[in-house]
């Protein structure tokens, strides 16, 4: 009898003393290793480990080692990767309707963007879960602007430019084509050479990219009109999320939202630094009158027919709900 009790005690002791096996989450990130953004992810990994008492660990694959958005999504579907920092293009690959939030000209201010991210973005949560993913947080990192080789303030002036649109972004290219812009599909790697050779004469990008890749040196006229917000998100596969004990979910999510705020602040700083650098190196910021701004927004918002509608990227009802929401903010 004593032997049996002793054995049971041993079993219970082992069962309760041994920690639950740690879950290692493989996270793919496009952020360069050693960058401030990469460091922020490492800080988040440390917080996740603390919150979960060491049960949830994170292994970060920085600098695009895990591939681009599409690669990372595919690897998450296979279970080779658990989580990823995705750009808006990756997010719309999973749930195309999310594209509505980054349509050129659809949002016109930071305040509108903040409200949309707080109130409208969560409406896509179920769509992501149905696809096997969960967006733990959305992040924003500035706005894209147009840059051109010659002063181009109006839409008609921009239509005379050869506008580079990334070749992976067919929907945006279609959208701009519908608006009668002269679209030239161009890969990001070839943009500088294309600008140098005159194959393209305009592009759009956030200031950070325009400065870092020195594209602005070829097309120094920047239209001072926020064209579209640069969004991203921290996505985890639903399968992995459900393997994490539920009692940790709220705190882990809070930690990641905290990180998203840091991303945003760092992005603001970097975009401002980029503008300062470009200003010192010959950037011309073309101011627009209110009438010109209105003309731009009217033009851009008037050309969604190729991407909105049945069988297209964005469902009619989603677009209408979104516009109802946005108009309520104005």
């Amino acid at each position: 009898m004593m032997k049996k009790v002793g054995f049971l005690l041993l079993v219970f002791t082992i069962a309760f003393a041994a920690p639950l096996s740690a879950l290692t989450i493989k996270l793919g990130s496009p952020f360069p290793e050693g960058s401030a953004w990469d460091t922020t992810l490492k800080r988040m990994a440390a917080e996740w480990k603390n919150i979960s008492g060491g049960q949830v660990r994170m292994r970060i694959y920085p600098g695009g080692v895990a591939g681009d958005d599409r690669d990372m999504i595919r690897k998450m579907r296979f279970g080779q990767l658990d989580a990823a920092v995705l750009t808006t293009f990756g997010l719309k690959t999973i749930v195309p309707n999310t594209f509505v939030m980054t349509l050129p000209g659809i949002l016109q201010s930071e305040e509108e963007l903040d409200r949309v991210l707080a109130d409208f973005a969560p409406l896509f949560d179920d769509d992501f879960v149905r696809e096997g993913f969960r967006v733990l947080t959305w992040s924003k990192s500035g706005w894209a602007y147009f840059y051109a080789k010659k002063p181009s303030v109006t839409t008609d002036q921009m239509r005379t430019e050869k506008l580079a649109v990334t070749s992976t972004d067919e929907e945006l290219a279609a959208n701009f084509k519908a608006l009668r812009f002269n679209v030239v599909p161009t890969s990001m790697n070839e943009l500088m050479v294309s600008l140098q050779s005159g194959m393209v004469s305009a592009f759009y990008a956030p200031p950070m990219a325009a400065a870092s890749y020195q594209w602005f040196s070829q097309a120094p006229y920047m239209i001072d009109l926020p064209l579209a917000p640069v969004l991203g998100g921290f996505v985890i596969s639903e399968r992995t999320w459900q393997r994490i004990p539920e009692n940790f979910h709220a705190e882990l999510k809070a930690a990641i939202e905290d990180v998203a705020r840091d991303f945003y602040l760092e992005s603001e700083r970097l975009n401002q630094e980029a503008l300062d650098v470009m200003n010192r190196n010959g950037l011309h910021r073309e101011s627009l009158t209110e009438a010109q701004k209105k003309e731009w927004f009217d033009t851009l918002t008037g050309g969604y027919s190729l991407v909105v509608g049945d069988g297209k990227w964005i469902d009619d009802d989603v677009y209408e709900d979104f516009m109802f929401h946005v108009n309520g903010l104005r």
Partner: protein
Amino acid sequence: MNKGRWFILLLLGSLLLVSCRTLEKKAIRSVADMLSSPDGAGAITSDDDPQLIADALPLALKIYEILLAQDPKNDELAAATGKNFAMYSGGFILLPADMMDDEMWEEAAEARSRAKKLFRRGRDYLLSALDLRHEGFLASLDSGDYDTAAAMLETEDADAAYWAGLAWLGMASTDPLDVEVLTTVDKAALLMYRSMELDDSPAGIHDMMIQLQVSLPSSVLATMRERSPLTANYMDGYYESAGIGTNPRDRAVFHFERAVSLSNGLEPSPYITMASAVSVKEQDVESFRTYLNAALAIDPEENPDTRLMTLIYQDKAQWLLDHIEEFFLVDF
């Protein structure tokens, strides 16, 4: 004492002071020459105790700076000072930071920030050395007149240009989102290519070229090529004569083979560069292991002149192998 004797004493005193200063300057110059000579550098690079050098270098760097402050026109000393700053920053600050566990993110970030400052200091000394040798070099480089700046450099400048480019790229690698630095990195690429044009026999230049091909955004090289048509011509001719096309990977492999051949296979660095820059990018575990095992198989005693760097790089190679799961998505 009459006025005549006072005058003689004053004259003698002045002469003594002048000769003391001359002697002091001569002494400084001779110490500086010794430190900046290959023998001086060899005392560091041939050591077999990386920790000893890590501990000794900060003091040595300050001695270099003190000597340089006394002899600011000494271009050799300026170049040696810059080179040692770059070496210390890369080998003893950045490399250990790269090998820190992710959980030590704060320490790693601090180390990177420090490495950036030291790389910057090293680069500036090296650029000033080139400017001392060729008046107007910096002005041409700063103003974007790349061809004029590059044309001023001669064969004797190849080493300083290489180290200046290396320090510049090192600075960018410590903080990959520093826009201010990123917008100038094409100048580092210019210095690297000009250095190779002047002397393509050191293995180190080819090692750096591997990185340049696979890590630099294509826009950086495109910008440099546009601003320096002479360098663009040189690049095209160089690769064409070697039968290499425009594919960055092909060029990286070409430079790797050149680096291995020029070092007689005795330097681990090119293998590590290929493993971490190419194999990881292509998620090729087998080549990763092959390169790193080749780096570890090198006997540091076979090339005593580079013993220190061999030991440091082999430490890195072993660390990469020990942490292979952090670079590849496959399960081990």
